[in-house]
């Protein structure tokens, strides 16, 4: 019968198709889903390029986030690994805390206090205290990773993209990436401070000749350090603002910390701009 023949032919076609099963595409052809897939496969450059093209066509929040996450992935920052840091945020420290300086450093500052003819003693002490206060942040940020200079560039791209994000989740993501960048910069600064401390101790122990007669800040490259500290504080301020946008009820309590950080940074920059330029 004709109908049975037709049925048999179609049945054979299905059998042939089933013998060589076609894997189901989970993306359904959606370019955003395809980009996620590329990120999960480690094809970050390709994902960034695809998402940039998509973002130019459709500058939507979800594409902005995806592109920022592709940059973050290339920098080695995967939020899934730092879930504790995402959900475990308390309010950031509201005040710069007294430092936990080494005995040798304290001794050096005691010596400095006996030398009223030296300019910049107060600023140097304040800088040391701010740097030490970052150790409080270091505890908070222990769960977050750091990244190298190339990674930091990618994070800056991601932060720039997320700047325009008006959703709370996007702002929290920006805060997290900002804190990773902040931590990376703080770590860089700590290494710098160790060198400064080493040099200062050498000068004050008489092992090295230093220009301490005129300006103690000339012993170190204070201007560069002041620029760095300003950048760190700006980063901190942005992270706090992003965090405040994600958790509006905590925003008010963060304002004081931001203002204080700003004042200190501005003061550093003022002094650093004049010191040994």
């Amino acid at each position: 019968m004709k109908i049975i023949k037709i049925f048999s032919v179609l049945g054979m076609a299905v059998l042939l198709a089933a013998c060589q099963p076609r894997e189901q595409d989970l993306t359904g052809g959606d370019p955003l889903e395809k980009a996620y897939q590329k990120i999960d496969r480690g094809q970050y450059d390709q994902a960034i390029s695809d998402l940039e093209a998509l973002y130019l066509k459709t500058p939507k929040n979800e594409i902005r986030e995806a592109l920022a996450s592709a940059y973050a992935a290339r920098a080695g920052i995967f939020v899934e690994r730092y879930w504790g840091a995402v959900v475990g945020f308390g309010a950031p420290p509201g005040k710069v805390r007294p430092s936990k300086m080494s005995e040798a450093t304290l001794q050096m500052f005691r010596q400095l206090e006996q030398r009223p003819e030296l300019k910049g003693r107060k600023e140097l002490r304040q800088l040391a205290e701010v740097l030490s206060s970052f150790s409080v942040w270091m505890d908070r940020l222990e769960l977050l990773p750091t990244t190298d200079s190339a990674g930091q560039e990618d994070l800056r791209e991601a932060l720039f993209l997320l700047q325009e994000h008006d959703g709370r989740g996007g702002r929290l993501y920006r805060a997290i990436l900002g804190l990773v960048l902040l931590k990376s910069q703080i770590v860089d600064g700590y290494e710098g401070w160790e060198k400064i401390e080493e040099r200062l101790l050498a000068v004050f122990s008489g092992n090295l000749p230093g220009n301490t007669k005129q300006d103690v800040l000339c012993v170190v490259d204070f201007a560069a350090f002041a620029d760095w500290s300003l950048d760190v504080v700006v980063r901190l301020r942005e992270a706090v603002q992003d965090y405040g946008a994600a958790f509006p009820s905590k925003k008010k309590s963060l304002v004081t910390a931001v203002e204080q950080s700003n004042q200190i940074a501005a003061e550093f920059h003022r002094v650093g701009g004049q010191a040994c330029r």
Partner: protein
Amino acid sequence: MSLVRLLPLVFWGSVALGAQVPRELSLGRSDSASKLLGGVCFTTDTGRQALPCNPAFISRETGSDFRVQFFAGNNISYLRDVSELLSGEGDEATVERLFSQTRPSEMEANVEGAYRQPLFGIAFAPYRIIYFSAIRNRALPVITLLAAREQSLRFQLGSYLGEDWSWGLQVRGVRREFIARTFTIADAVVEGSDSLFAAQTQNAFYLEPGLLKEWTDSAWKPQFTLAVTDLGYVDRKDEAFPASPALNVGGAVHVPVGLGIWELGLNAHLHSDSGAWSEPLRLGTSYELGVTRFSGSLGASDHALGFQMNYKDFFGGLSYSSRWIENWVGANEWVRTVFFEFGFDL
């Protein structure tokens, strides 16, 4: 415009929710026959369904009975993990388990009671739950979540059109409460994230006609079927549950065997998400011997196997389905699901 050109427009739509939620999960049915035979259940009246998939088969009903059945699939542990994550109760192990997933997860369960008699049937499903979640993008996990609870009431009526033709019509009302969102993990923990999980409702009303042509004089008793599903109205449009009709065209034969009953069917399930030529096609078969019925079907990227057994007024069965996918990290893998069903007749 010709009918051939018009059909794709009528049946075009999309079930897009970020990640692709399988249509058979969001708009399909949760029972053994649907899982084992897929679209082929529209071409045959096999299995102990509450009501036949194709309403035209209600005209062939010879007796009357009242039936209650329960159906569920695996993946309960995954459901618990996702709930813990979203409620903030998850620990690092929960997070590790969830984020190591390379493909979406699904779960469904259904309770249904039905009464059927010649030319008429009614079924009420007070509780059907479906669940779908997909977590991808390790850099900033994006979660697609579909959780729904449905209540549905179906009426089927049918009759003969001459000697070899039968028709049927299913009138179906569905009330859905659901959460259907795609969001990042950061969206889920910020202030005000509760709104992400606010349930929405949708009321739907469908008219689903079916047609059956039989050649009863032939030894193989071939039959041709046509059925339209999901043709109707929704009071609130949502991409998770679109008003997106599907057309089922198929045929079946009863292979003459000395012992038992063997049925072989082929169906094309055409709808908005139909892709390659082979995707809508499905070949299915069932063989009944005594109190046991074995069924199975093959599609372009999946297959299913299972059995049902009767003991007096009780029945039960297991279904096993496998789907071949390319997962998010680029590897091909089989997604295997086991479903069980049991019920009784009154």
